[in-house]
């Protein structure tokens, strides 16, 4: 599948503010029959541009090119467009657009459509503003033509177009069909930010109603006439294959229709999920493990520690670390271990595929349109545009659905191919399939050293990382791997913001570990923020300096880091004592990290009991993510990021034994529950800069802030995730 290559064509252009954007207007505008749910049978939706339809029933439909997986993207994109359109928020609805890389590419990714890297708002900001402003201009010209008045005299506000001189006014719906026939303006004037009426305000989520009454449609909820449900027996180790299987018992189960071999295992097809599961349980499969990966986590870690003894490929070098360390008055060192982590979205991976005479249709919580479309097309011998991808709500993803190898989507397609397309198929992964299906956040080992000179100044920093590459072998390789360094393995480490004159970051990338790995919410920063920020506190302790004061000293060249750090420290009353009850130790810790061009600082307040158990009481967060399109959603994403990261800090760990994943469900792999959720406060730095990401940046600082708070309470720095609380027994 090496023909699918994604290159970062437009990011630089975009950031320079030149015309790297396409609006993807579709001319001549087409009026399409609206879905029945809109009410009046005669209502039609007029397509104003690729992102905007206005219905004769006065509905404004924003077409989202990005997946709504919880991060609030539907609401955010609609907020931007609706503000420039001057729509009434109540008339705005959002629909997921069907895949189309020409109209809906991620402008940071060149000609590819997809959602990831916390880019949805950032790459769409200018595009959605222009789409809204352009729609507004077309409504205005339609009204000017109809009323025979000057366009400049027309006012648009809250979904009403009016002309004071003649007293005429019209709703968007009344003008929709005429507006669609207006010429698309080549230049549009965007609002002065002081005139924003939705951006920066409290626009309510557009998906709240459907997600609180059970009507939101996830892939799991798709039913097609004649559809079969497939549950697959997967091999117990990565790389193992089917040697032989006996389906006689499975086929005897009521509801089971077919049993087929596919490259990923053996699929049992039934009329319903429960029958398919019973069928799979009754299968007898013999696996060929001759090419399987058979190591356990302990052996992998031992290997990584061995590799860390030798220099790796240099990812970043300034000054002369060899000389600095040789002449150091004091060297501080520590190493850190990070396990594999599963995304464990609440909706296990699933996908519906229907092969038809003239093409193929897919229903999915679709995050990686262009990659998945190319692969499915290749499998069926179709052109990509013959594969219609319907993007449904995703019940979480955290990176999992943007699979570089299209794993579960292709698995569903393979099943359809194996039955010659005789029925549409819904592939259902049970929780255990999802947990053991690989594509984990890679395991990593980090070794760090800091050199202090005779006057106690921090003059040298060496950081060595060992872990698998996510990108090598993926369509993103050309874009993100340079000179053997996978950018996402070292992000957060190679761009250390601290002013340390001698810095060396190097990387080992083992290539003989057969565990599939993938980005996991905040990617490299999910481990680099931990090792850098905890280690900096260890260095501060060795220097006898306050962690906030030391950071501020070292952040002279990074005002945004310093800004959020000061704000979080201030709101947390940093430096004041925390009250502890008898027998409990309490501490406050801090961390600051940049990821996806956003800056987040967090202060954690933690209680450690005598038995070593930890209660995270409160997290105070400060965020700088540029223009706050929807402040409440920013708070929501940071609250959620805190909980997601805390799960990994306290419990998250996928382990292998003889190549087999030991965890299968939420008992062995335990996200935090409500009783472990701290109080979270989120403070947003006011900014007029273009918006940056917010889906991921709340995650990285959490674990190091908590670990630093634990160290403040106990004197003990924790060097592995998840935390080993046995080290904290008083």
């Amino acid at each position, binding site marked *: 599948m090496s023909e699918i290559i994604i290159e970062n064509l437009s990011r630089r252009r975009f950031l320079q503010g030149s015309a790297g954007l396409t609006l993807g207007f579709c001319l001549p505008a087409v009026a399409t029959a609206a879905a029945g749910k809109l009410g009046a049978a005669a209502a039609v939706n007029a397509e104003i541009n690729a992102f905007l339809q206005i219905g004769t029933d006065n509905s404004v439909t924003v077409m989202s090119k990005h997946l709504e997986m919880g991060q609030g993207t539907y609401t955010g994109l609609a907020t931007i467009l609706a503000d420039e359109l001057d729509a009434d928020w109540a008339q705005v609805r959002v629909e997921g657009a069907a895949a189309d890389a020409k109209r809906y590419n991620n402008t940071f990714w060149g000609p590819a459509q997809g959602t990831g890297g916390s880019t949805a708002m950032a790459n769409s900001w200018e595009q959605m503003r222009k789409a809204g402003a352009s729609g507004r201009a077309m409504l205005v010209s339609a009204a000017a033509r109809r009323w025979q008045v000057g366009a400049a005299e027309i006012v648009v506000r809250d979904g009403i177009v009016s002309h004071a001189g003649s007293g005429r006014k019209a709703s968007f719906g009344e003008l929709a069909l005429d507006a669609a026939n207006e010429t698309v303006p080549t230049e549009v004037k965007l609002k002065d930010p002081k005139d924003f009426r939705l951006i920066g305000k409290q626009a309510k*989520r557009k998906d709240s109603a459907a997600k*609180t009454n059970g009507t939101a449609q*996830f892939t799991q909820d798709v039913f097609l006439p004649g559809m079969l449900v497939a549950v697959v027996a997967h091999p117990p180790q990565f790389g193992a294959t089917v040697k032989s299987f006996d389906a006689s018992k499975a086929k005897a189960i009521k509801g089971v229709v077919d049993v087929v071999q596919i490259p990923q295992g053996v699929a049992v097809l039934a009329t319903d999920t*429960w029958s398919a599961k019973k069928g799979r349980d009754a299968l007898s499969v013999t696996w060929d493990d001759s090419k399987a990966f058979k190591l356990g986590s302990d052996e992998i870690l031992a290997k990584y520690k061995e590799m860390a003894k030798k220099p790796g490929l240099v990812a970043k070098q300034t000054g002369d670390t060899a000389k600095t360390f040789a002449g150091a008055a004091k060297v501080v060192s520590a190493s850190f271990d990070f396990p594999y982590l599963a995304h464990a979205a*609440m909706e296990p991976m699933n996908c519906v595929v229907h092969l038809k005479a003239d093409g193929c249709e897919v229903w999915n919580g679709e995050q990686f349109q262009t990659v998945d479309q190319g692969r499915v097309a290749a499998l069926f011998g179709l052109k990509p545009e013959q594969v219609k991808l319907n993007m449904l709500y995703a*019940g979480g993803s955290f990176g999992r659905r943007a699979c570089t190898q299209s794993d579960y989507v292709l698995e569903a397609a393979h099943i359809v191919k194996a039955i010659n397309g005789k029925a549409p198929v819904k592939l259902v992964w049970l*929780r255990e399939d999802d947990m053991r299906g690989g594509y984990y956040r890679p395991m990593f080992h980090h070794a760090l050293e800091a050199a202090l000179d005779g006057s106690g100044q921090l003059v040298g920093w060496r950081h060595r990382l060992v872990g698998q590459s996510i990108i090598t072998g993926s369509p993103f390789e050309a874009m993100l791997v340079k000179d053997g360094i996978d950018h996402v393995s070292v992000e957060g480490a190679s761009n250390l913001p601290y002013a340390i004159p001698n810095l060396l970051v190097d990387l080992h990338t083992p290539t003989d570990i057969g565990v599939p790995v993938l980005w996991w919410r905040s990617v490299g920063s999910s481990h680099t923020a931990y090792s850098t920020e905890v280690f900096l506190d260890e260095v501060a302790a060795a220097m006898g300096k306050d962690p906030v004061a030391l950071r501020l000293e070292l952040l002279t060249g990074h005002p945004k880091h310093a800004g959020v750090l000061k704000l979080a420290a201030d709101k947390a009353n940093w430096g004041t004592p925390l009250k502890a009850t008898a027998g409990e130790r309490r501490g406050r810790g801090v961390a600051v990290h940049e990821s996806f061009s956003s800056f987040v600082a967090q202060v954690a307040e933690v209680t450690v009991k005598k038995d070593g158990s930890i209660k995270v009481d409160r997290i105070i967060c400060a965020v700088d993510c540029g223009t706050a399109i929807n402040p409440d959603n920013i708070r929501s994403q940071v609250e959620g990021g805190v909980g997601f990261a805390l799960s990994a800090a306290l419990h998250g760990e996928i382990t292998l034994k003889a190549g087999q994943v030991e965890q299968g*469900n939420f008992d062995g792999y335990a*996200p935090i529950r*409500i009783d472990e959720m701290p109080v979270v406060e989120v403070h947003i730095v006011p900014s007029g800069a273009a918006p940056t990401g917010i889906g991921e940046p709340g995650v990285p600082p959490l674990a190091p802030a908590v670990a630093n708070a634990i160290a403040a309470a106990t004197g003990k720095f924790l060097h592995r995730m998840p935390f080993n609380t046995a080290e904290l027994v008083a």
Partner: protein
Amino acid sequence: MIQLTINGKAQHVDVAPDTPLLWVLRDSLQMTGTKYGCGQGLCGACTVHVDGEPVRACSTPVSDVVGRRITTIEAVDGERVGKVVQEAWRKLDVVQCGYCQSGQIMSAVALLTQNRKPSDADIDNAMAGNLCRCATYVRIRAAIHEAAKALA
């Protein structure tokens, strides 16, 4: 044929008696508001009410609920507590991905039906069976307090 009473309506389904209620709701009746998350009663995404009590439908054989009153997310607004809880959820924009929220709401409604003024500890006890991977817990807690206020 098995006869069930779901959301006040009689339903007849042709399934094996050991079939979990979850799959009867989802696959036989295509009432898809109730979600599959774990199949072992660990995550609460499939929570429904049986005679008013919160129950994990994924690990409840359909034969156990014959003759009992089953309520799902689709009809939870039929009673005042359910309506108020949904309104609180919307007012505070609790949801993110939304997949677990049917189960969260069913558990919250059961709690508030029995305890009109739950403390944080009561909420933690009643809601600890419902996982949310997006970690919307801060707002779940706030929305339950909000609903309690509206019900007072």
